[in-house]
């Protein structure tokens, strides 16, 4: 099963880069060759954030598999993110 993920960040800040690094690392190790990852900067594309109803940054959205799920906040704790993504369940 391919995991389709969108990561919403705000601007080119240290926080944004940290979030990107964490999610890339998790995807590489736990979703090897079965993920699509997209990055959206809400400051550059607020209309996209409006459609997706994003409020907080950073927010990782699991678009597929459904139901749609938003994971907000710091992603430093990889296990928490993996748990929230429910990777084990969908395996």
């Amino acid at each position, binding site marked *: 099963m391919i995991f389709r993920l969108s990561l*919403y960040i*705000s*601007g080119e800040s240290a926080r944004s880069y940290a979030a990107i690094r964490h999610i890339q690392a998790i995807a590489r190790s736990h979703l090897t060759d079965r993920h699509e990852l997209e990055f959206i900067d*809400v*400051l550059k594309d*607020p*209309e996209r*954030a*409006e459609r997706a*109803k*994003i*409020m*907080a*940054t*950073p*927010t990782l959205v699991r678009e597929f598999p459904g*139901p*749609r*799920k*938003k*994971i*907000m*906040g*710091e*992603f430093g*704790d990889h296990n*928490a*993110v993996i748990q*929230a993504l429910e990777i084990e369940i969908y395996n």
Partner: protein
Amino acid sequence: MPSPPDYDLSKLPSGIAGFDAIAYGGVPEGGSTLIAGTSGAGKTVFALQFLHAGATKFGQNAVFVTCEERPARLVRNVRGFGWDLERLVEEKKFAIVDLSADPQEEQVDLGTLHLTALLARIEAAVRRVDAKRVVLDSVGSLFPQFADPGMVRRELLRIISYLLDLGTTVIVTIERGENEQSIGRFGVEEYIADNVVILRNRLERETRRRTIEILKTRGTIHQRGEYPFTIDREDGLTVVPLSSTTLEQSAPDSRITSGIEMLDQMTGGGLYESSIILVSGATGTGKTLMVAEQVRAAIRSNQKILLFAAEEGREQLCRNAAAWGVDFVGAEESGLLRIESHSPEEIGLEDHLLRMKRRIAEFEPSRIAVDSLSAFERVSTPKSFREFVIGLTSYVKVKRITALFTNTTSLLMGTESVTETHISTITDSIILLRYVEINGEMRRGIMVLKMRGTWHEKAIREYLIDGTGMRILGPFTGIHGILSGVPTYTFSSEAQRLEALIPDDEV
């Protein structure tokens, strides 16, 4: 009442009738205003009316940030007020930012986050329609969506100050707990806004009473205290600005006839135009007859008269008037008379006031009559009754309308009623109708108790009611204490007593 002073901060017209009067101009421009109220108090209507008026009347486009209600529901709910938000969105005058929680979606909060995406969305909407007015409704619904309420508070403050930097005027609504202890429930209110407005929806004497209070406006002044308001389909939210109505109405010295020749003599030449006349008497003394005489006088001088009947239906009024020789039906057909018959219990007093004002504005009468004013007292608290009377009288004064109010006293003989004490200071003339007992016989007496600005007769005269209406005879002589309800007689002889018994014009 003082006239509105010069304010130091410029204000935006709110588009809410009456609010600008109590706020001395409206909502502080470029500031933030908090609207607090319990559920169902009218916060969303207030906020949307502010935006809708901005976009349609004042050339100020608007952004509505909804945290609770789904946009589709919102658009549908306000259609009843005649607000077409969809068209405004199409015309790029209005934008909605939807923050309502999606029940289909799961959400996990891992902590340490910012609401920058939210800020970016609101900013994008503001720039897209070039908005000058922004509403966040209602921010309390944001808190349950996140783990850290402190973060939400901080971010709200950041968003609001950013919006103010963009040059917009911001209204934030917040839900209040039922206990009315604090302004809001989330600890944001202390520093979130420069101005605080509280909407209340209380149960008083089994009727709902809505009031609005401006609690504070930083750096500017406003009217204090609670003011009643109504929400209805025609105008949305309307505040009844009672004490803000000034006493600067003109007082013409032209006279009009009361319809009764002798009464005109007693008042020194007739009633003043655009004055307020109170006719007070016990049941059956002929108050409705006085109203009918007013109608007769209006018809004769080709003036329009609007009659608000609170105690009798239209049919009954017409029948009684016909018995006194006044043709109500014919007058209605010719367009000189309009009868509005409504039971006071039907709707709240504020709504009655609003409806009366509307009817007066539509019909544009020279005279109005309310029969009886005291019927409205039944359904209200003394405070709201007083507000009702002040609201009505100041409106007819501004419109230069002559108004005749009747008041039913509770006791047959003598004494005054609550209504009299409440409104006697507002009226220009007071006419008393009283029962007088003389030698075991009930007779009727009329007197002009008060007539502002002119001489009037001080005597109590006897009057009769017959097929031609009211016939005023000579003064009672040899009797004291009619008003106190305990008359005493000072006849020195049998002849004098007999003379007193026989009215003047029959001698």
